[in-house]
């Protein structure tokens, strides 16, 4: 096949426009367009605000989660870490005079500690991350109950909660989205433009091979669990200030939404592939589908069925595609032999 330079460059452009990341982006655009046309009240800045502000926790945690899943591991304890952070924030605000930045620092240290526990158990002791983080999911949620008990804290400084729920001018875009965007940029650069990031793909594709070429497999994963703990803790603080409420069950169940969004964004659950653009699109896709269905007055039952189906589709579609490709290559190979 004689490819000229010109067609090869064009081919690469086409690939970028039709890769797995791009599919999620197209799906997102399609859902937004369809919702704007068919769901009353969808098109408008109110939607932008309501939709994005509740996407921020998922988007933030999805960043470290994407990197962890790229290495072939998982972290299911994120929502519990955020919950512990929320409970701690609530108690510290209610019972001490500490300024908010100090509280933020304390809970991030707590988040780092939780992440370190996960990291040590997974990388040093070598236990499967699924088992470890299911364990810490329950354990850390238990700690949240110890910290705050059956109380609920609702008194937070009004200027802070107002700032957290504020929007940028009249755009409807939440101010906090700026921080989320910075986080996305940082993780995007780490994953796609650093040797560390490329090492993560190598880890996820083949642990043995990665070790063989000199990647410090354990250390890389350990850093990711630390990052996951810290980001989850920060999300816990955001959660508390966004809802003006801290209690033991804050942020419960968010881990599955995050994992679903990451997978929908094209990160392979087996590790080794996926990109940040797709993950961002995946988060926004799930959120937009959910919000537009809610706006259309559909019950949660329909919502869970729709998001569940989306997820199943996103997982089986690549595997069907791969099978089809393999069958075609086999046919080609046979035909080729016949010619010889």
């Amino acid at each position: 096949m004689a490819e000229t330079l010109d067609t090869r460059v064009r081919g690469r452009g086409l690939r970028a426009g039709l890769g797995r990341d791009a599919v999620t982006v197209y799906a997102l655009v399609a859902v937004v367009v369809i919702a704007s046309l068919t769901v009353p009240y969808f098109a408008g800045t109110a939607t932008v605000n309501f939709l994005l502000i509740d996407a921020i926790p998922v988007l933030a945690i999805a960043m470290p989660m994407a990197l962890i899943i790229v290495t072939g591991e998982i972290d299911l304890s994120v929502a519990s870490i955020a919950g512990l952070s929320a409970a701690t924030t609530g108690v510290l605000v209610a019972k001490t005079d500490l300024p908010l930045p100090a509280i933020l620092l304390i809970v991030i240290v707590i988040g780092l500690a939780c992440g370190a526990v996960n990291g040590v158990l997974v990388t040093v002791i070598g236990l499967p991350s699924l088992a470890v983080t299911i364990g810490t999911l329950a354990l850390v949620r238990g700690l949240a109950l110890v910290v705050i008990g059956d109380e609920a804290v609702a008194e937070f400084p009004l200027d802070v909660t107002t700032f957290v729920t504020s929007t940028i001018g009249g755009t409807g875009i939440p101010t906090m989205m700026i921080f989320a965007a910075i986080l996305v940029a940082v993780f995007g650069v780490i994953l796609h433009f650093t040797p560390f990031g490329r090492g993560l793909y190598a880890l996820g594709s083949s642990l043995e091979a990665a070790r063989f070429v000199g990647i410090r497999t354990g250390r890389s994963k350990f850093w990711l669990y630390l990052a996951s703990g810290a980001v989850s803790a920060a999300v816990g603080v955001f959660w508390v200030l966004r809802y003006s409420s801290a209690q033991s069950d804050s942020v419960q169940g968010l881990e599955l939404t995050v994992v679903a969004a990451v997978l929908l964004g094209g990160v392979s659950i087996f590790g080794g592939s996926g990109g940040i653009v797709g993950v961002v699109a995946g988060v926004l896709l799930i959120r937009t589908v959910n919000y537009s269905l809610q706006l259309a007055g559909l019950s949660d039952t329909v919502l869970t069925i729709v998001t569940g189906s989306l997820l199943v589709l996103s997982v089986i579609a690549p595997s069907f595609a791969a099978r089809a490709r393999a069958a075609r290559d086999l046919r080609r190979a046979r035909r080729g032999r016949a010619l010889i």
Partner: protein
Amino acid sequence: MQSSTTARRIVAISAAVVAGALALSGCAGGSAGGGTSGAGKSFSMAFVPKQLNNPYTDVELSGGKKNASKVDAKVTVVGPNTASASSQVSYINTLTQKKTNVIAIAANDPNAVCSSLNQAKSGGAKIITFDSDTAKTCRSLFINQVVSKDVALVELKQLGEQIDYTGDFAILSATANATNQNTWIKFMKEEIASNPKYSKMKLVTTVYGNDDDTTSFQVAQGLLQSYPNLKGIISPTTVGIAATARYLSTSDYKGKVVLVGLGLPNQMREYVKNGTVKEFALWDPAKIGQAAVYAGRALVDGKITGKTGDSFDAGSLGTLKVGADNTVIVGPPTEFTADNIDDFDF
């Protein structure tokens, strides 16, 4: 080779888009609620229960739906599958966008839903809470089944009578943060501490079944294992009492450990008839929904503002008064025993 992959991707994407379009357009049809308000005109009202598919909530909402036509309300029900506040917030936001006239909510968290309710209010909506209240500043009025203290008193009385006012007992509640549960529990604790009649009764622990049948069942099981001297259990939640009754009826504790609490007659009938449970209490939940739609009408018409001293017509419930803390009380609790349980069907 390149082109065939490309073509296939394009086909796949188009197919997904079309499927999405069909799904969404199918859904969007009948839900353009909202709009006009004013005396005598039809108004839109949305119930946001703590969670959907809860038998107790279903009875409550049925009272609202049944009476909707009498006040010319277009009633819809939206809400989460699991009792989470953040999901309720999302639904409240959609109701704000749709300019729903009245939002009636049973809050999963008294504070977390507040800012979004205030947004709805500034958009012109009237806010009613039922069952589980929010902070007072976030709603016009709260429709409560019964006086909270009466619930606590009737449960203690029912338990006390059956255990001779002596011995250890435990409470099996819903979630650790449920406003209504915690209020009742607080009144029970106060009553035990202050009333000499209960001086020999000791509350050993409060456990949480999270209003989930399986969890409540397991928690009840664990309770009886860890407190072998337990004389009785109070479960002020319909999910909890049914699960506990089911566990007791299949165990050696049947007839030995007294169970009282708040239950639905249809769920408890079997256990009352087989002797696991002697008596329990509740009110008629359908009356809550009914009171809510009539209150919605009165608020929309501007006949009441929800201040203490207001009163409004509530159809077959007669005239209801807004009492202290802008609260409307629907009625006294009903006690169910083997003698009267067959008179109730809910």
